[in-house]
């Protein structure tokens, strides 16, 4: 389980979060309220103070990369470092099966990333983030650029992830999605208003 206490990042916080396996915390708030910053802080990509514990392991105990192998940040605008999607996966042999889950043609794996549509890239990034089964997924608007069919498929994948014992912190602007997934909610206000879990 995830336990966050007194988490402060930049001018935001303090945040208190507690999350059990299979649960989803929905983070809502206007743009500029620090939603992405909170997720980045949880993944230790931004400097933050406070306690963050995963299954009784404090983040300071493990190295940054080890922490991020358990706590996976999925950016709203996923980044790419190689030519094709295939090179971004640890197990290229399993790509065909996982691509099928989100209606992505297997040929897409060897097309240049720059030729993929925004929606295709977003789905590939979701698969990439879930590839090695992180303990906690921090998803920043994971379905923002998708059509209805793709949204359904992606949500199904996220539901399976939760059912298998995963934890999810979800930033979304869709109240429908928030209602469907959220077992708890964190509402963020404008700068330094702080947030209150419920």
């Amino acid at each position: 389980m995830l336990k966050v206490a007194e988490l402060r990042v930049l001018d935001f916080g303090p945040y208190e979060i507690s999350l059990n396996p299979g649960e989803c915390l929905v983070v809502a708030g206007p743009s500029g309220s620090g939603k992405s910053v909170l997720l980045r802080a949880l993944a230790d990509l931004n400097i933050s103070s406070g306690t963050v514990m995963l299954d009784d392991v404090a983040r300071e105990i493990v190295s940054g990369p080890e922490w991020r192998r358990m706590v996976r940040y999925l950016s709203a605008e996923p980044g790419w470092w190689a030519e094709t999607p295939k090179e971004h996966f640890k197990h290229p042999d399993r790509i065909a099966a996982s691509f099928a889950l989100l209606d992505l043609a297997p040929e897409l794996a060897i097309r240049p990333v720059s030729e993929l549509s925004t929606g295709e890239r977003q789905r590939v990034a979701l698969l990439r983030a879930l590839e090695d089964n992180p303990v906690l997924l921090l998803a920043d608007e994971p379905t923002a650029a998708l059509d209805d069919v793709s949204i359904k498929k992606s949500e199904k994948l996220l539901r399976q992830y939760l059912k298998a014992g995963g934890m999810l912190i979800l930033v979304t602007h869709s109240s429908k999605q928030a209602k469907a997934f959220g077992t708890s909610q964190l509402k963020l206000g404008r700068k330094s208003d702080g947030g209150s879990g419920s």
Partner: protein
Amino acid sequence: MNYVSLGIFDLAAAATLILINGVISLFFSLGIARTLAVSALRMCVQLAAVGFVLRYVFAQSAFWLTALIAIAMATIAGFEIMSRQKFRFSGFWGYGIGASALFSAGFMTLLFAMILVVRPEPWYLPRYALPVLGMILGNILTAVALGLNTLLVSARRERAGIEARLALGQSWQQASNGIVRDALLTAMTPIINAMAASGIVALPGMMTGQILAGVEPVEAVKYQIAIMFLIAGATALGALIAVLIASYRLSDDRQRLRLDRIVRKS
């Protein structure tokens, strides 16, 4: 050795050619006539000063005086690295990284050159040590400035890709691999090109100088080849030191990407 000595009237004759630049500036209203005059004057004053300093240092041929001049040269070159970068690290690191690469690579190569290659008597003979150091530093300076600039510019440009790798649990070393390689490659390209082109496109400056001073061409070529290898080694070493320290500074103990440590040149 025999060479034609230049008198003050010979220099004045050469200086008339700068009027061509001035006329072009005025005719096309480029507005650089003033800058041009100042630059030309600076060149004369600076070179004259260097000439007299070197004459004095050569005459003394003392170790500590030579070392002092050498350190001053490297210190100034360090500032030049900083001024050539679009982005640099904030605080002392902005100067320190380039300067430490210059000092370590520069003086290691100089010692190597003096003790094992040129072998003058004494080994620090300023007439050899200072010009050789000047050539080494000038080239390390270019390489380090290019390497650091490439590293910082690509770190900013590739931010999304680098952070995606970090977010997936890769180490900083893996995540920064691409920009480090880019930086090293960019830093080493000029000397590789210079080696390939030398003698065909242009006669290297030092060799030209020696030939004008009356050295037999094949002798001058031998010096040039030795210097080219020294420069190649020195630039590679300097770029490696600078890029590795900079890459270390771009990250922290949690292996994050720390772009907040970079500032734009004001």
